[in-house]
């Protein structure tokens, strides 16, 4: 009798507990979807804009050695969709390039027609048939006003230059080199020439889910020696460890006018490299509180609120029951980095990839868009269910593709809806479901911002893996003010990469932005700085140019793009590095 009574009590308590748990934690849909008051309109307009690009990646089918691991081909071919926004013809309107790595496929270059439509002109520019391209970075490596292209591929990266209207290869990075999605462009030595930070990913499989030690290599710096010739610079950074790096972010993490690096690392902890006074880098792992998640995919940086230090957003894998920590938002507190993604409600976005901060409604608060989804199929087979069969195998065993369960027909965190986190000040609210964002639930990778119509309404392009590209035009009528800035360096690098901007508003508020268009995952965003002002007017803009000039610009025109040229503003101070 005593047994039955106590069991009854326990059963009642347990049922209550399950009901509590169900109500509180089971809903996987983003919380508070209907809470955001303002109407946000982001419409998928690829058809209307004349964009017809489907990413193709069957690269590994053509590789003989991979015959042995056919069963995991979808995994191998799962990370190469990228997009690069660039004003390639210097007409003041943003164009974009999308590479396609399959041997018989064509990369596309879309030229902005200034009316919301694009025309595809990759053949005219000599960019249609490239050798297994995976990611392109447009930057001016010789400061001549035209954009060169860093092109990573399944082989060594190459540099292309526009010669007589067509792009031609002018430099090939020396061996050893391998497949790389993660690179960033910066002028780390402040010599006025843009350099490259690059880290390889791999065709091999990791030997651990959390502490893999068999990646293809560490982070490398390539110094621009002039005339777009690059040399590996091991004096400034040397990382012998072997990692799987998806993305490299650049930010002034400690507010010291430095260009610190954050490497989003898969199967291990992220690595942080602080820039020293002499321009060199040293790894600063101890400042990152013991991280829970070890699937870093992308790095985006922004001043989320009016804080002293920028915040770093790291995309991660989130899957209930398996990988539960989600995305992170790290901010330096003077001694170490503290993660506040959960408090700000931006930690849950499925299997996250590209992420980008941008002020969608020009209210003065940066919002956040995240692309997600890994491998989508329609068979109903879920690879998460299969993973339990081999996940506990030892290190030696895990990195052999023969030992993995077959991916044939399986979905792995597929059909996920991208996230649009609107900034409410203290926290964010995901309105993706509310506005039917990404109804087709593609597998997003690279995500870039673009203001196609130069009207201050920043939209997005999402490069979907082996699927049709998504182009979201921002049609939100916010009535808020904004200002756009195109920075042109003279003594600094011409693209002004590394510049930081502080806008002073009529209400006395100051907003900070840094210019690193290559942050994120496998994407290059609109090269102009866009600042939402809310209902305020603009008083002034202060620009810290990469080379050290600190200048003030006044009498700028709101609600349009302004061109700011280095040394044309009112000099406040010259910072020395």
């Amino acid at each position, binding site marked *: 009798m005593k047994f039955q009574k*106590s069991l009854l009590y326990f059963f009642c308590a347990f049922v209550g507990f399950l009901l509590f748990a169900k109500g509180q934690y089971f809903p996987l849909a983003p919380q508070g979807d209907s809470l955001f008051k303002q109407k946000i309109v982001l419409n998928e307009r690829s058809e209307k804009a004349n964009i017809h690009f489907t990413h193709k990646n069957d690269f590994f089918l053509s590789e003989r050695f991979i015959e042995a691991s056919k069963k995991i081909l979808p995994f191998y071919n799962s990370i190469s969709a990228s997009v690069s926004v660039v004003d390639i013809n210097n007409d003041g309107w943003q164009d974009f390039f999308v590479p396609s790595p399959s041997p018989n496929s064509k990369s596309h270059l879309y030229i902005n027609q200034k009316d919301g439509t694009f025309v595809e002109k990759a053949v005219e520019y000599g960019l249609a048939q490239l050798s297994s391209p995976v990611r392109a970075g447009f930057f001016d490596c010789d400061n001549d006003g035209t954009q060169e292209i860093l092109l990573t591929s399944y082989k060594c990266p190459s540099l292309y230059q526009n010669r007589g209207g067509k792009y031609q290869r002018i430099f090939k990075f020396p061996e050893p080199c391998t497949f790389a999605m993660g690179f960033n462009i910066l002028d780390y030595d402040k010599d006025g020439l843009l350099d490259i930070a690059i880290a390889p990913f791999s065709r091999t499989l990791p030997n651990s889910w959390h502490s893999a030690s068999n990646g293809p290599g560490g982070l490398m710096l390539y110094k621009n020696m002039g005339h777009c010739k690059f040399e590996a610079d091991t004096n400034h950074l040397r990382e012998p460890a072997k990692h799987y790096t998806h993305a490299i972010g650049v930010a002034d993490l400690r507010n010291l006018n430095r260009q610190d690096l954050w490497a989003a690392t898969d199967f291990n902890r992220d690595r942080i490299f602080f820039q020293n006074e002499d321009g060199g880098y040293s790894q600063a792992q101890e400042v990152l509180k013991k991280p829970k998640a070890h699937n870093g995919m992308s790095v985006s940086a922004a001043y989320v609120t009016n804080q002293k230090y920028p915040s770093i957003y790291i995309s991660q894998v989130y899957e209930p029951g398996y990988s539960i920590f989600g995305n992170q938002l790290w901010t330096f507190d003077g001694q170490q980095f503290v993660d506040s993604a959960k408090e700000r409600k931006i930690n849950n976005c499925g299997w996250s990839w590209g992420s980008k901060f941008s002020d969608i409604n020009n209210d003065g608060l940066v919002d956040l868009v995240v692309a997600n989804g890994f491998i989508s199929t329609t068979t109903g087979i879920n690879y998460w269910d299969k993973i339990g069969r081999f996940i506990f*195998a*030892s290190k030696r065993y895990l990195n052999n593709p023969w030992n993995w369960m077959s991916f044939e027909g399986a979905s792995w965190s597929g059909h996920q809806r991208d996230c649009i986190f609107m900034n409410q000040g203290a926290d964010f609210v995901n309105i993706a479901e509310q506005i039917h964002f990404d109804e087709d639930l593609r597998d997003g990778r690279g995500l870039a911002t673009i203001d196609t119509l130069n009207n201050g309404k920043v939209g997005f392009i999402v490069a979907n893996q082996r699927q049709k590209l998504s182009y979201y035009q921002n049609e939100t009528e916010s009535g808020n003010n904004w200002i756009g800035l195109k920075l042109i360096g003279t003594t600094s690098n011409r693209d002004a990469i590394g510049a930081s901007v502080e806008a002073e508003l009529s209400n006395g508020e100051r907003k900070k932005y840094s210019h690193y268009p290559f942050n994120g995952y496998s994407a290059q965003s609109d090269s102009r700085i866009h600042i939402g002002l809310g209902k305020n007017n603009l008083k002034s803009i202060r620009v810290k140019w990469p080379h050290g000039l600190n200048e003030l610009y006044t009498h700028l025109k709101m609600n349009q793009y302004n061109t700011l040229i280095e040394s044309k503003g009112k000099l406040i101070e010259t910072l020395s590095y």
Partner: protein
Amino acid sequence: MKGISITIPKLSDPRFIFLMFTFCFLGYILFLPGYGRSASEYLFLMSLCLFFDFFLRGIMDGKWVFPLSGLVSAFGLFMICDVSSPIYYIPMAILAMGSKFFIKIKSRHIFNPTTFGVVFTSLAFPSAVSPTGLLRWDGNLFMSLFIFICGLLMVIKVNRWAVSASYYLTAVAVATPLSFFIHENPYTYLHSLMWEGIVVYTFFNLTDPKTSPHKLKYQLLYGASIAVLTQFFRTFDMRLPEHKALLIACFLYAAIDIYIRDKEKIEVWKVREVSIGGR
């Protein structure tokens, strides 16, 4: 004035051997780069388990017993589960220790508390609790060997070696032919058996003297049935196959024991009583 009498285990209690290993493992895993959990989180979970073990026993049984079981369960829970926030250690500890005092047959708890806590917390909070925490052990075969030796000493001491042996042998015997039907590399499961976490499970979770059979023949059957159930769950890609199999086996054994009376001579931990505050 009457003092409080607290029962504390004797040093010959086999759980002390387990605790000794526990702290070795704890030291090891906390320094692993991929482990992702801190010592303070362990202390929090340990405090919860000690609290619930001590007070639930006091309230339910009217006895104040040093909560050694709480210590053991805390390690098991900490080792296995990733939690998105330490707050989830609270329901985990309540479920684990609660199962010990509320779900009893013939005055004996029937489920291994750690297993009960792991399974039900992760089912209730799939978005916040993940039992894949074992992955963070790094897949080091030398560590597996060390745990294997420690485990072997332990099961010989508590007279449960047959459970572990039977589990291992049956698992291999069933998994090898089964792998051909489910299109799995036959070595995959053998490798899984060598994983540090599975070795701990085999020697420490399966062989809980309070919930596992006493007589040799029943131990052999018990270990074998868990191995078969595990393979069944794995075949259908169910989460937590080992732990679910153990829970079911515990329940079935407790039910069958009503008739077979294997636990008539129930093992009792060796204890001594200490009075505090009496005059």
